[in-house]
């Protein structure tokens, strides 16, 4: 029987024995793909789930695709990575990261839905996967190279045609098989998709990421450092297989509906439309393009093209915050806007080449600058550093800093194991109290959306495993704030907006607009707990397992449609519609949420085994002890709230702080609604068995960490 939407096999790589084996995907089918598939595989193959450092050889890393990768589903081209991370605080949780590009699609065309990485090689290796044939190669000569050099050398070693003079090449060239002259079987014009680490990964730093092509990085969680600890330099995948789709007509129908109904009219585009899926394609660099000569670039199958390849030869394929990690320092030295752009894009390139997560740098640099200013960091200071601090803001400094952080040199020697760990080592824990070091949760930096303001972001991060980086609801803020900024009438009034969104928050918060009240009185309520639950479950399935792109989904409201209802949860082009067309499933939107709840519960069981208890689920002290001051940036920080008369308004919420006691009450509400033990936060047997996870409950019970049922 065809397994629609799937390649049908999962590749297991035993690095210790340098052996590759296959298992059937069918056994894990109920987990969907991506994160769900990864969690199920981690649960089965990681034999010690108490580990708190991803470098432990017992750690298992899974790189997983989605059934939607490489189909016509718009904006669903990403890949997911799971496993125990590195560099978090106080523990590195079982966690996740993701990246775009073409790796997931190519992996499936090579015959696999996911790769399970186990053990540790005795010396550096890279792995060549072609049409279900797997070869381990010595990577000693690649060790020490940056991510771009490593990919180029692997392509060269494979004999892949390069440059603009590309053509057909034979995947079997290094094998014994002859080509079938009647078909193109085994021949392709595509380059292998390679996922690799740079020096940041090789040196096992918490900032080490996994890089694919020039600028797709799975940055958060330190998985590059984990690969480094396993002596795994790269995995290359290429294939000529195809993915069977269950209902091609339904897929095309959804695509047509999306184009005609939800997407801005290309003849008369509405650039200010309030929508995600329906937005005009545009670049997502935080700095302007360095030139008008560029080609937009998208993940395979995506309608956006949010990255670009520039004729100037730098800044290509990188996007979002990576392009602005050095923005504040570089403003000090740049003499023109063009120079500012060039410094930032070249600094982004440096980070991508070393394969390092730059999110630490944005917030972390503010902290380092504070330490320099205080006179405790620098040459001959209490925290010695011989970096050229007198050149702070120049490209030279940026490159030396990236090198130091990636190679455990200078201050990088301490920061490599975690920035918060370094703060404690340096006697600077007080900076987490004052907010000079704005690392909000689990040793990770504030994202720009503060737990005291965008509560579902902050709560979701602290109740989970990392900064969630899920822009599902902050589009409310950006649209409202933009309208206020231009002094233009609101496209949608607050009452209508929350009403439309709440229609789609099925099942827990369906038609309950009060869950979207971001006001002071509501921020610890059961209403918000339901919102957080919905968000955790939605993203665990639709965003991290089906792998819908964060930039385009969910589409709650959409001013391109007459009734302002977006595509999310709709019966004509909702998330589940695409899923069903590809896989042949008959899921309702709510069924997808329920799969997400199951994945979320399995994840919490793993955290529980790692040592999670509600007592350690708290933010950095500054969240409770200082006021939310992002409102200093804008004269307003607007969110929907109910006023004293219960009427919906857009209200400025700047200046507030978080009440530690009330947050504890919120946690109790959340745990109760999830069916977890309110005293410990651990899952209960009834909840797990209700999700078909009896074996998980048994494992927790054997470990003495099964939650108690409470009245």
């Amino acid at each position, binding site marked *: 029987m065809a397994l629609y939407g799937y390649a049908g096999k999962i590749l297991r790589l035993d690095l210790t024995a340098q052996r590759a084996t296959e298992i059937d995907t069918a056994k894990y089918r109920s987990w969907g793909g991506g994160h769900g598939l990864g969690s199920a595989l981690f649960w089965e193959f990681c034999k010690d789930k108490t580990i708190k450092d991803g470098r432990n050889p017992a750690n298992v890393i899974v790189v997983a695709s989605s059934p939607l990768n490489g189909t016509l589903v718009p904006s669903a081209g990403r890949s997911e990575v799971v496993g125990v991370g590195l560099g978090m605080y106080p523990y590195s949780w079982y966690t996740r990261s993701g990246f775009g590009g073409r790796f997931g699609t190519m992996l499936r065309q090579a015959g696999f839905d996911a790769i399970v990485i186990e053990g540790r090689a005795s010396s550096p290796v890279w792995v060549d996967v072609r049409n279900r044939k797997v070869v381990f190669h010595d990577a000693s000569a690649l060790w020490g190279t940056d991510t771009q050099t490593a990919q180029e050398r692997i392509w060269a070693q494979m004999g892949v045609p390069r440059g603009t003079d590309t053509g057909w090449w034979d995947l079997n060239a290094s094998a014994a098989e002859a080509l079938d002259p009647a078909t193109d079987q085994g021949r392709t014009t595509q380059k292998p998709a390679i996922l690799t680490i740079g020096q940041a990964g090789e040196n096992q730093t918490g900032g080490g990421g996994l890089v694919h092509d020039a600028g797709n990085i799975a940055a958060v969680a330190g998985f590059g450092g984990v690969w480094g600890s396993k002596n795994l330099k790269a995995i290359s995948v290429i294939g000529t297989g195809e993915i069977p789709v269950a209902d091609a007509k339904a897929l095309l129908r959804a695509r047509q509906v999306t184009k005609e109904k939800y997407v801005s009219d290309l003849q008369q585009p509405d650039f200010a439309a309030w929508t*995600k899926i329906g*937005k005009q394609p*545009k*670049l*997502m660099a*935080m700095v*302007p393009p360095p030139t008008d000569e560029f080609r937009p670039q998208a993940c395979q199958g995506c309608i956006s093209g949010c990255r670009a390849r520039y004729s100037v030869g730098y800044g290509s394929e990188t996007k*979002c*915050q990576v392009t*602005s990690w050095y*923005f*504040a320092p570089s*403003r*000090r*030295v*740049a003499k023109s*806007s063009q120079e*500012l752009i060039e410094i930032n894009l070249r600094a982004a390139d440096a980070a991508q080449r070393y394969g390092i997560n730059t999110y630490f740098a*944005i917030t972390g640099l*503010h902290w380092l*600058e*504070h330490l*320099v*200013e205080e006179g405790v960091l620098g040459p001959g200071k209490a925290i010695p550093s011989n970096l050229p601090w*007198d050149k*702070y*803001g120049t490209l030279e400094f940026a490159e030396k800093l990236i090198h130091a952080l990636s190679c455990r040199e200078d201050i990088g020697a301490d920061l490599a194991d975690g920035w918060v760990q370094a703060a404690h080592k340096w006697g600077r824990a007080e900076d987490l109290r004052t907010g000079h070091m704005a690392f909000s949760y689990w040793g990770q930096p*504030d994202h*720009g*959306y503060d737990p005291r303001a965008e509560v579902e972001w902050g709560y979701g991060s602290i109740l989970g495993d990392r900064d969630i980086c899920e*822009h599902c609801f*902050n*589009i409310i*803020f*950006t*649209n409202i*704030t*933009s309208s*206020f*900024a*231009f*002094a*233009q009438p609101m496209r949608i009034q607050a009452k209508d907006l929350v009403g439309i969104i709440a229609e789609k928050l099925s099942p827990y918060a369906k038609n309950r607009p009060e869950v979207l009240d971001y006001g002071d009185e509501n921020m610890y309520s059961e209403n918000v707990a339901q919102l957080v639950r919905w968000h955790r479950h939605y993203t665990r399935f639709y965003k991290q397992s089906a792998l819908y792109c*964060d*930039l385009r989904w969910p589409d709650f409201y959409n001013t391109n449609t007459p009734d302002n209802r977006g595509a999310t949860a709709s019966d004509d082009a909702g998330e589940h519609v695409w899923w069903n067309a590809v896989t042949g499933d008959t899921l309702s939107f709510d069924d997808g949420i329920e799969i997400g709840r199951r994945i979320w519960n399995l994840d919490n069981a793993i955290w529980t085994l790692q040592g999670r208890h509600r007592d350690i689920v708290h933010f950095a002290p500054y969240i409770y002890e200082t006021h939310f*001051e*992002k*409102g*200093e*940036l*804008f*004269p307003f920080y607007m969110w929907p709230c109910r006023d004293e008369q219960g009427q919906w308004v857009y209200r400025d919420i700047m200046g507030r702080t978080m009440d530690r006691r009330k947050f504890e009450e919120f946690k109790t509400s959340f745990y109760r609604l999830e069916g977890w033990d309110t005293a410990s936060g651990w899952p209960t047997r009834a909840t797990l068995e209700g999700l078909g996870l009896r074996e998980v409950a048994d494992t927790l019970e054997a470990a003495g960490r099964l939650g108690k049922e409470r009245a």
Partner: protein
Amino acid sequence: MALTTAMDVETAHRILASVPHVRRFPVGHLRPPTGLIPSFVRSVGELEFVLAPRSDSLPGVHMERLAAWIEHDVGDPAGAAEVRAAAAAAPSYVDACVAVYERIRDRVASARHALESAPQVQAPERRA
């Protein structure tokens, strides 16, 4: 570019120099649909880059606080008055950003001009 009234060297120094980190001024960039990037500046010169009009994002600057910062932390009451006046006359926040950007740009140009006209004076530190 129109220069504002002639500026004394001392004021020019203050405008172009960086204030101590503890007296930095918070700014941001709003990049719909996803991004709010918080940051800060330590000199008026940096504000030119923050406020420069762009088609794809909004600068994040609290104008009232900016005027107070320029007056008290930078030490340029005349510049602060220009910022206040420009912001107050603008019909929207975006218009205020454009108007204040022009004032800042001119103020910085005046400061540079003042220092160039007094070559014996040592250029201010770009970074404290």
